[in-house]
């Protein structure tokens, strides 16, 4: 490294003080604002998860009252889904990387980007108020007529919180779509885009097309509680199943909003980990779009036992089977990429391999739920809880942590401690499997979801799961520790510590505010290893 006369000017030291952060329009700083607020909600949701698992260690409900338990699992759901899983990868990694990956100076609408962070914070405050003022006990699904007629808890503030944070997702999605369409550097054609940009594009499509419907649905729930319109109230003639149609129209594509960005991160990690192009680039890219489109046709499989007509259930079942195919294609292509690659065992790549394995189990257990006959038995039991945690925790959070470790040198200019990171990755992997695999078994045995007390014969499996949860809890604390530690004491990272291909590795770490000295001209394909020499800017 050349001796540095004055510290290099980059986006972190390009202005100090609260105002330079709270009024920034730099997509990289906004990404860090999101990183902080998203982590806060992750640990709120995580704390509730630990309480839930502690409660379930005994068949009798003796740690908390049933009222409190209902509020715990509801707020665990709301905090994790709406305030962590949906915004995390797009708003933190997407915000930071997409402009750099396509060679732009910033997103298309920087002010809109800052506005979407403030909207996220306002939504968060609404939900925090609801938690402090007594909590909400309707489950994150707000099924009517319980949420509109019967519940006496803070449903309206939470509903407003979700309504507001939905717009943060819409604005981020809108920003990404316009940026990817209109602001690619010269030479950056669609098929030279990194796969993370493809999956972020597909995620933004779902965000933009799905979130408005849940916004109006949540508004209807709040309106029904306040004005008693009677849309979902059977005594007035309303049909509670209509709420489920409106709710799941968004909430199933929402699970693809949560997993698609993680898939994008994994494509990057596998390509960099094996230093070779991703196998079947175009198939993986179009698989993202296929998931985004098919994801909107399948919501009925959440309602097979909810009084849906037999023929409608059949239609949703066959469509639900089709949506599994693009995910399978992605898994096969990742695995095929490793063939004859130069496979590294660095921490981000460990997270990627863990992701592929766990996502395969999560995805295949989805087939059990698309098959109506088996779904009738397993829906609303712990089999479902295990299925979606394998996708959300085994998939999205593994992808998020992998991405955070992989791009940490680029974000902070520092290298984290590799040994500690590997240990944390293994603890998380083991803790995760010990927590959620027993839940498949106890689920098929028939233990229902959201139960505060359960028959004694389920206790052994629940104790195993609670033990796993404590390991997983510890596992999640470690990365926060050594990543923050690395900010001060980590070794200085060069511009390309992993020797990877990608525009983000051609600029300095951390990058300057305008990302590149001059707008790069792209002449090489997506993952053309070995990295072209001239990109190795010292």
């Amino acid at each position, binding site marked *: 490294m050349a001796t540095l006369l004055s510290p290099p000017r980059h986006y972190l030291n390009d202005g100090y003080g609260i105002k330079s952060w709270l009024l920034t329009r730099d997509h990289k700083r906004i990404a860090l604002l999101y990183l902080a607020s998203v982590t806060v909600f992750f640990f709120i949701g995580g704390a509730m998860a630990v309480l839930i698992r502690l409660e379930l260690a005994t068949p009798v409900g003796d740690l908390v009252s049933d009222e409190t338990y209902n509020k715990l699992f509801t707020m665990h759901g709301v905090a994790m889904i709406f305030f962590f899983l949906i915004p995390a990868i797009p708003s933190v990694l997407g915000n930071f990387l997409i402009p750099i990956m396509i060679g732009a100076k910033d997103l298309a609408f920087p002010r809109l980007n800052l506005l979407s962070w403030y909207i996220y914070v306002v939504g968060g405050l609404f939900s925090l108020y609801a938690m402090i003022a007594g909590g909400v006990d309707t489950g994150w699904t707000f099924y009517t007529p319980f949420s509109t007629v019967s519940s006496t808890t803070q449903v309206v503030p939470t509903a407003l919180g979700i309504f507001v944070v939905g717009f943060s997702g819409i604005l981020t999605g809108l920003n990404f779509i316009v*940026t990817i369409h*209109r602001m690619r550097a010269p030479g950056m054609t669609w098929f030279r885009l990194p796969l993370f940009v493809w999956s972020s594009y597909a995620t933004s499509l779902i965000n933009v097309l799905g979130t408005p419907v849940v916004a109006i649905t949540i508004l209807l729930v709040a309106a029904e509680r306040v004005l008693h319109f009677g*849309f979902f109230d059977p005594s007035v003639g309303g049909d509670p199943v209509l709420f489920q149609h409106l709710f799941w129209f968004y909430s199933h594509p929402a699970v693809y909003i949560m997993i698609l960005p993680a898939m994008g991160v994994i494509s990057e990690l596998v390509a960099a980990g094996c230093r070779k192009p991703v196998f079947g680039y175009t198939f993986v890219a179009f698989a993202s779009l296929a998931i985004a489109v098919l994801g909107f046709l399948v919501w009925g499989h959440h309602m097979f036992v909810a009084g849906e007509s037999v023929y409608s259930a059949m239609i949703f079942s066959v469509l639900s089977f089709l949506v599994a195919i693009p995910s399978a294609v992605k898994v096969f292509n990742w695995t095929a990429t490793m063939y004859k690659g130069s496979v590294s065992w660095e921490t981000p790549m460990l997270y990627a391999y863990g992701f592929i394995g766990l996502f395969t189990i999560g995805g295949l257990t989805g087939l059990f739920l698309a098959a109506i006959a088996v779904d009738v038995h397993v829906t609303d039991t712990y089999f479902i809880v295990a299925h979606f945690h394998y996708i959300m925790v085994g998939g999205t959070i593994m992808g998020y942590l992998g991405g955070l470790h992989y791009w940490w040198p680029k974000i902070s200019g520092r290298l984290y401690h590799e040994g500690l990171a590997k240990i944390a990755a293994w603890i998380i992997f083991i803790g995760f499997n010990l927590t959620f695999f027993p839940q498949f078994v106890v689920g098929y045995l028939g233990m229902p979801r959201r139960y505060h007390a359960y028959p004694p014969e389920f206790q052994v499996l629940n104790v195993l799961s609670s033990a796993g949860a404590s390991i997983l809890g510890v596992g999640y604390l470690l990365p926060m520790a050594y990543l923050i530690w690395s900010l001060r004491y980590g070794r200085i990272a060069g511009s390309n510590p992993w020797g990877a291909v990608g525009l983000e590795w051609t600029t300095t770490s951390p990058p300057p505010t305008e990302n590149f000295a001059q707008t790069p001209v792209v002449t090489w394909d997506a993952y053309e290893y070995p990295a072209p020499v001239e990109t190795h800017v010292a």
Partner: protein
Amino acid sequence: MLPDAVEHHHPALAHQFDSLEQQKEAATLGMWIFLVTEVLFFGGLFLTYTTYRHLYPDAFAAASHELIVWAGTINTAVLITSSLTMALAVHAAQTGNRRLLVLFLIVTMILGTVFLGIKAFEYYSEWEERHVPGLNYAFDPRYYRHAQIFFSLYFLMTGLHALHMIIGLGIMAVMLRWSIRGTITPEYFTPIEISGLYWHFVDIVWIFLFPLLYLIGRHAHV
């Protein structure tokens, strides 16, 4: 268009864009995507309407019979005229005729206000006839409960539409100020075009609301 040098530091060109052309297309695409979210936002309500009209056709026809059809018809005409004047405003901005632009913006805002006035009158008369669920709702006992769903939908859909109209008037006020101040020029008229897209969208929502809410009970022999 402007020569290259002038374009690069045209006051309206944001730093992250390379040209006014790129900025215009980005802004237009951004507004269209926002309109997609609005289509689906109203879509949830149209689904609720469709489902309950399928389940309770007679109650919906009886309830729709109580709405003031001439008020709805005039409102439709008012909104279509405001769409015309909005389109002419965009045309005036493109051709640099600032006087005409300001005139058409004012006429559009007046028409929007007239629409809200007629709507307020309708709401008042429905309140008088005691058709407002939650406040003083009363109706023919045979369809009492199912008609309540119709009236709830009516107030929610037209209320949400009116709210979007009010936001539209706010946008038009800002556009009027920019037009008078001269920021709108034939090179930089994107804000006017985008506001026009939003206004036309609000008109299209009413084009569907009017027949679905007002016209289903007219011939009924109820």
